[in-house]
């Protein structure tokens, strides 16, 4: 049962139904139970209800069970008359205990909710702090670079040499690219969160896409060797070309940033027509894309958090907003795919993307 039944009508229904059900069961055994025991049983039922329902519906349950107790269980049966003062007192106390019980339970529940709300608020605040921290760093660094460089270039008193000028220009170029990348990520994040991303599935030549992304990151990947592994003829997959481009861009960008210069980055494309890589509920994930680096991998404790928004590896050297991987996850899932991360035995991280994409074998059409 849910912790809280928000719907009030539902709450009234539950309180009345439970009380009547318990009373009905007691009624069957009326000849074997004293009405005092029945009273206790009803009290327990009302106390249990207090855990789940609101104060008003609890009042209904308490009142109803008192009436039921009186009408069906306290002699004379089927009247609201009570012979003895003792029974009248019992009924009154029954009602009071039920209400106190309920009220206390209700209070405890409210306090717990408040505490949860506080915690959630606090978590959001901490998230915002982290976001602001990393964002201001990620956005300000390139802006500072650009503004600084312009300042130096505008200085007429100490003119720059041509070589210094072109070095500054190169830095400004890099900075504006970095700025653009981060803004792109922020926009994608908000698009994902507002549900604005609707994949446009079309036949994709993933091999072509691999090289296109590698090319667009040529500068970032200059210090790495990128290896593409795949069998010779790959089929076409029905995916969103633009989204796949952004996914691979982010994964490769990350690999370039966080693995040491001189190491290899491997891109793999695997397709096995009759084999589901991770069969679940009849959906065959027959298309698998892997991105592997040979850096330090992820700390094992954090591996499940890697795709969380704003997650960053503790003490990671270069800047980052912690948005890249959560965008990868969002864009993958938008295409009904899934992404996993594991550390390789040889060190380094391996991202595994799986898609249950429609497939078109090239030999089907290339001879037409």
């Amino acid at each position: 049962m849910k912790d809280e039944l928000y719907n009030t009508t539902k709450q009234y229904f539950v309180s009345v139904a439970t009380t009547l059900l318990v009373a009905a069961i007691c009624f069957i055994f009326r000849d074997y139970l004293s009405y005092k025991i029945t009273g206790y049983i009803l009290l327990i039922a009302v106390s249990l209800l207090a855990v789940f329902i609101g104060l008003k519906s609890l009042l209904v349950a308490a009142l109803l069970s008192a009436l039921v107790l009186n009408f069906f269980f306290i002699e004379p049966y089927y009247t609201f008359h009570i012979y003895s003062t003792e029974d009248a007192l019992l009924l009154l106390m029954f009602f009071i205990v039920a209400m106190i019980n309920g009220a206390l339970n209700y209070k405890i529940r409210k306090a717990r909710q408040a505490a949860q709300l506080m915690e959630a608020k606090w978590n959001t605040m901490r998230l915002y702090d982290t976001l602001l921290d990393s964002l201001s760093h990620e956005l300000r660094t390139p802006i500072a670079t650009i503004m600084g460089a312009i300042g130096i270039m505008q200085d007429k008193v100490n003119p720059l040499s041509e070589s210094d000028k072109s070095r500054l220009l190169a830095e400004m170029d890099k900075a504006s690219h970095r700025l653009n990348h981060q803004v792109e990520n922020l926009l994608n994040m908000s698009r994902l969160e507002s549900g604005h991303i609707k994949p446009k599935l079309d036949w994709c030549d993933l091999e072509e896409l691999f090289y296109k992304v590698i090319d667009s990151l040529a500068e970032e990947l200059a210090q790495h060797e990128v290896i593409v592994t795949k069998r010779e003829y790959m089929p076409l997959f029905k995916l969103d070309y633009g989204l796949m481009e952004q996914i691979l861009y982010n994964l490769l960008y990350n690999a370039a940033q966080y693995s040491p210069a001189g190491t290899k980055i491997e891109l793999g494309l695997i397709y096995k027509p009759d084999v589901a890589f991770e069969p679940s509920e009849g959906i065959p994930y027959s298309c698998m894309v892997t991105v592997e680096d040979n850096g330090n991998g992820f700390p094992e404790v954090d591996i499940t958090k890697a795709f969380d928004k704003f997650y960053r590896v503790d003490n990671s050297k270069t800047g980052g907003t912690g948005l890249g991987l959560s965008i990868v996850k969002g864009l993958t899932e938008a295409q009904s795919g899934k992404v996993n991360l594991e550390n390789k035995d040889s060190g380094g991280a391996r991202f595994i993307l799986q898609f249950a994409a429609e497939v078109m074998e090239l030999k089907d059409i290339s001879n037409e």
Partner: protein
Amino acid sequence: MNNPSILVIDDESQIRKLLEISLNAAGYKTYFGASAKEGLVMAAGHGPELILLDLGLPDDDGQNVLLQLREWYQNPIIIVSVKNSEAEIVKALDNGANDFLTKPFRTQELLARIRTALRIAGAYQSDPIITFGNISVDLNARLVRKDGELLKLTSTEYQLFAVLLKNEGKALTHQYILTEVWGNGYAEQTQYLRVFIAQLRKKIEADPNRPRYILTESGVGYRFITA
């Protein structure tokens, strides 16, 4: 045509300033329109050789401006738009735009696109032989040579190549190429295009994985360039 004139229709004054400086430095005469209305007036008044049109204008949809211009304006129109708006770009190309650039772009890239668009608009193709890099195409004889060696193209490959050649420098949508090469019923059959583009690249490009001539425009289509 010593100093071709270019009309920039863009509401951002910073972008206009930047383009004024870079286009003038590159030797072009420039006109500016800060709104759809102003842009249309300037286009009619000056008849520029090329128009740079931003799709996000304050007073009217850029697509409408494009359609109105195309009622009479025959010179190249290059669209400038924000990223992630493939649908808008495809629509603009269908509406008669020659090419597109997404913001932010490099000035060098813009100048290259302008040069190509102007060169193609001014050129009258009378010579049936087209040569670029190590490729030469004889349009009369329907023969393609690479380093002087005859290339064996299937008839579909050749038709596809011919459509690309005819539209050099233009961004072509998948639908356009499919309809041109395969016919009306094939506009959505992108798998054909993927396969034949890959095959054509294998035969024409030095490194098919890093194409120099047949470029992919994500989510839009292809662009064929020779320079």
